[in-house]
């Protein structure tokens, strides 16, 4: 749907005579009566069944779910077991990253026992930061896995993308190492979060590029077949 803009309208394959007459009446009729065709209703208890499976709000602000799916719907046949596996691997990572950030906050607090104002701020908001960091790292891991899967046929491309990502990752690690000894912890944490956001942006762009390459290739092969 979002590829409309790039579409070419000079497709050789058309049905010149009957498109107008045939197309119009049925299509027009369906369009004009669109609502009337929707006769089915989901059963009343579907929401309660569904909401049971939704993650608890308290545990996290961005909902995280045990059915991680393709965030790029065009991909078609997604291997759901792959994502379930990834998720299982991610579970402990999220826990670990929360623990890590909270731990860092604690260490920072200990190191700066002299009660300065910035330390207070950092520790009071550290749970919020921990949440954000864990959400972002989770998202990054998922997207990275997706990227890896989608570039299976093109390892060179993945390598190229990974170089860019690793650069950001390195500066993230530097910031993290800097955190305990830096007096202005909040600034460092904010920089860390900013860095994670950049990583997500970068991954989104990369996934977009792959998507575009794929759909172009698809068109090419389809056109060849016809």
């Amino acid at each position, binding site marked *: 749907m979002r590829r409309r803009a790039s579409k070419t309208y000079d497709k050789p394959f058309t049905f010149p*005579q*009957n498109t107008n007459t045939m197309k119009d009446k*049925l299509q027009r009729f369906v369009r004009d009566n669109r609502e009337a*065709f929707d006769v089915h209703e989901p059963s009343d208890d579907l929401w309660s069944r569904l909401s049971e499976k939704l*993650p608890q709000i308290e545990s996290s602000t*961005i909902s995280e779910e045990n059915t991680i799916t393709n965030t790029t719907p065009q991909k078609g046949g997604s291997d759901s077991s792959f994502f379930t596996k990834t998720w299982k691997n991610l579970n402990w990572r999220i826990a670990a990253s929360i623990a890590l950030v909270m731990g860092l906050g604690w260490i920072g607090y200990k190191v700066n026992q002299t009660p300065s104002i910035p330390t207070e701020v950092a520790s009071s908001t550290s749970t919020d930061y921990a949440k954000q960091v864990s959400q972002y790292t989770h998202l990054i891991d998922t997207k990275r896995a997706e990227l890896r899967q989608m570039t299976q046929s093109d390892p060179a491309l993945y390598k190229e993308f990974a170089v860019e990502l690793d650069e950001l990752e390195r500066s993230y690690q530097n910031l993290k190492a800097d955190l305990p000894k830096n007096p202005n912890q909040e600034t460092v944490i904010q920089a860390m979060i900013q860095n994670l956001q950049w990583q997500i942006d970068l991954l989104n762009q990369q996934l977009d590029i792959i998507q575009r390459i794929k759909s172009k290739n698809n068109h090419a092969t*389809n056109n060849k077949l016809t």
Partner: protein
Amino acid sequence: MEPRLYIDKHVELVERCKQGERKAQYELYKLYSKSMMNVCMRVVNHNGEAEDVLQEAFLDAFSNLHSFRGQSTFGAWLKQIVVNKAINHLRQRKMQLVDIEGYGSGDNDTDIANEESLDEEGIQMDVERIRRGIEQLPEGYRIVLSLYLFEGYDHEEIGEILGISESTSRTQYMRGKKKLLEMIKH
């Protein structure tokens, strides 16, 4: 379907869902569950399975809401998830979408030529008859017709979703429509 720049009226609701607000999630569910249920039904053609697909699609949508960046409306985004889920569901049901090329293979070219002789203008259109007619179509026809007529996908997009060529989608649509019109004529 065009990449129009208009304000999605549910932007605020979506934002609240991103924060994990259960009430907002319920609001969105109420707004979209019926139309999405009908999308599911037209693809999988089975009530219980359609609900399963619907539930799965909403779960996915809510947990991946952060990847929705407002490039389309929320409804269009959700529908993509629903359609993909439904198609995948059919695939798991061992239906081979490639097989639709085989439907009515004996009467391909003459079939299309004959369509002009089918007087569409003279056929009385009726919601219920069309709806039931589509339900009775062979699976391949039903899906192409549904995606094209109801969900607003074009043949290029349908080809991509189903993994068939654009012209196959076109042909399937023409044949499916012919069959449908014959059904509702009587």
